[in-house]
């Protein structure tokens, strides 16, 4: 089953899209690994992850069909 990935800030700039789909690898850490392989340019970036609008932990399972958001920090003011 696929996940919908929503991306923000610098990540969206780096990969030049705001939303895409990816096969569900099962949990958050597996997803991060998969994203790093697919988009080496975001390997070094720090970001938080939300599953269905809830902040997620690295060990958390991702339900099929979930919407996952990659949320980098902003500092501008």
């Amino acid at each position, binding site marked *: 089953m696929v996940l919908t990935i929503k991306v923000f800030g*610098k990540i969206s700039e780096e990969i030049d899209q705001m939303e895409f789909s990816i096969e569900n690898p099962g949990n958050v850490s597996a997803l991060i690994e998969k994203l790093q392989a697919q988009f080496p340019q975001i390997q070094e970036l720090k970001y938080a992850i939300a599953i269905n609008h809830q902040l997620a932990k690295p060990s958390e399972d991702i339900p099929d069909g979930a919407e996952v958001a990659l*949320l980098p920090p*902003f*500092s501008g*003011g």
Partner: protein
Amino acid sequence: MDRFDRHYNLKGFGKAGQEKLQNAKVLVVGAGGLGCPILLYLAAVGVGKIGIVDGDSVSESNLSRQVLFGQHDLGKNKAKVAGKILNEKYANLEVEVIPEFLRTDNIIGYLQDYDLVIDGSDNFPTRYLVNDACVVLNKPLVFGALYQNEGQVAVFNAKGSKSINYRDIYPNPPSAGEVPNCNEIGILGVFPGIIGCTMAAEAIKLISGFGEILDGKMHFYNFLNHSDYKIELTKNQQSYQNRPKSIEDLQSMDYQDFCGLSADISWEEVRTLMHDFPDAFLVDVRGKDEEPQLEGLAFQQIETDQIDASLDKIAQHDTILLFCQTGIRSAKAARKLQEKFPDKYIRSIKGGITSFK
């Protein structure tokens, strides 16, 4: 007719809401793109006391978005100009002007007197410092930040120690240079006004108990396409481990270092920077008689004990590179300068002139 007549007539707000605003003391960190609209609205709606913290002075490129300032304010301290304008507009408003940047050794004293803090600063060391101080002092914090055409707003610590803080979503800062600020990637003048007004609205709602606030939630907004995204935050164990637990802990933290900003750079990186940023300012902080002299790169000499007297000259540059004989004096000077100018790129050169190739 009263100045707040429309507030009295507003269902659910009324005289009770107005009284809460009148009794509130709010500290606004940063009088920049976010701070200007925040200050204007807090003062207009009748907040009793407003503190304005900013050590920066008005520069020409600020004027497209920092709407409290005009061309006649260039070079003046932002907190002082903002304070003067608000005092002139509203006779019964109490304003405290703090024309400094927040540091570990002054933040506790400045925050203590306020009920609520609003962070409109523009750099990660200040954002982590303000967050940690609010947690230690148990003060609610309205947070807002920008990245190009996107903004994020949250309310932290609104329910005391059980509440969420910035480190629950970002326990560790990004590495140096990973997230550029408005100086580097640009910003359209009107956008900080939208996010600043959202922050002011959250502060007003929090004080008056009007409506729902983003308590423990973070709201993302993209102004190019009007998309928004809201997430629920949860407590993060790593956040608790990383942050200072007491005032003493906080005062011994080095936030520049924590955010990876005290790293030294090599002469090779200096050449690249000076090529990419013609405005870069290379400074020899040694005494005039120290040898060897640097050759092949344009530099100025400002001895360490003359730096404080030369701040105006240094302030004209956004990239400041310091060297000495071995890199020790320049590292210390870079750290002190970074505290004075937290939004500038300030680096010491590793190994000093002895490593020059």
